[in-house]
């Protein structure tokens, strides 16, 4: 074959590729700013637990809030078919709450409505995220992963006073 080979990129298309790359870099920068400068983060690997015993020994044997210092809480949440333990928690407005969530049976989800707290719950793993809620009100937390027949009924309430 003696045909001359070349890439033949139309000038319009060349500019389109430049624009596309620029756009993606811009979005990536916006995501990085939100993540690393403003501190809106996703969960990272935390610790492992044994799903067979997690409801009997350790902090999830007694799920609920622990006050570390005024306005600073830890919330140990145990998910199981088809309820969250505890079903209700109350904190003062402006509290910083660190959630430690795990499951003793199947996978679940934990989404605290109107906030960015939204995690997958995987048996054997602990989903940890920290949030601060300033606005008083009732915040529903719902199960967002299919966990069996009564999945739709699985929810709880965080009351911010």
């Amino acid at each position, binding site marked *: 074959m003696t045909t001359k080979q070349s890439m033949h990129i139309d000038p*319009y298309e060349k500019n*389109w590729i430049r624009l596309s790359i620029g756009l993606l870099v811009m979005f990536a920068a916006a995501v990085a700013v939100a993540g690393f400068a403003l501190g809106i983060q996703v969960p990272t690997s935390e610790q492992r637990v044994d799903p067979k015993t997690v409801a009997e020994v350790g902090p999830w044997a007694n799920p609920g809030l622990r006050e570390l210092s005024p306005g600073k809480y830890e919330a140990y949440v145990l998910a199981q078919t088809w309820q969250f333990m505890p079903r209700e928690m109350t904190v003062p407005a402006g509290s910083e709450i660190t959630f430690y969530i795990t499951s003793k049976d199947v996978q679940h989800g934990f989404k605290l409505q109107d906030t*960015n707290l939204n995690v997958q719950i995987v048996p054997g793993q602990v989903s940890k995220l920290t*949030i*601060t809620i300033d606005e008083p009100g009732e915040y529903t937390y719902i199960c967002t992963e299919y966990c069996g027949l009564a999945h739709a009924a699985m929810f709880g309430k965080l009351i911010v006073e």
Partner: protein
Amino acid sequence: MAGHKDSEHEEFHPKGTIVVLLIFVLTLIILWGSVYVILLSRGVTV
């Protein structure tokens, strides 16, 4: 072999394509941006 073909297409500049794609980019920025704004408005998770 392809010489005459090239000149045949020399005329064609996809101007309409650029218009369509710019509308797409604008839509992309608006829709993506609106979810990003929701993210920012829902507070910090660490």
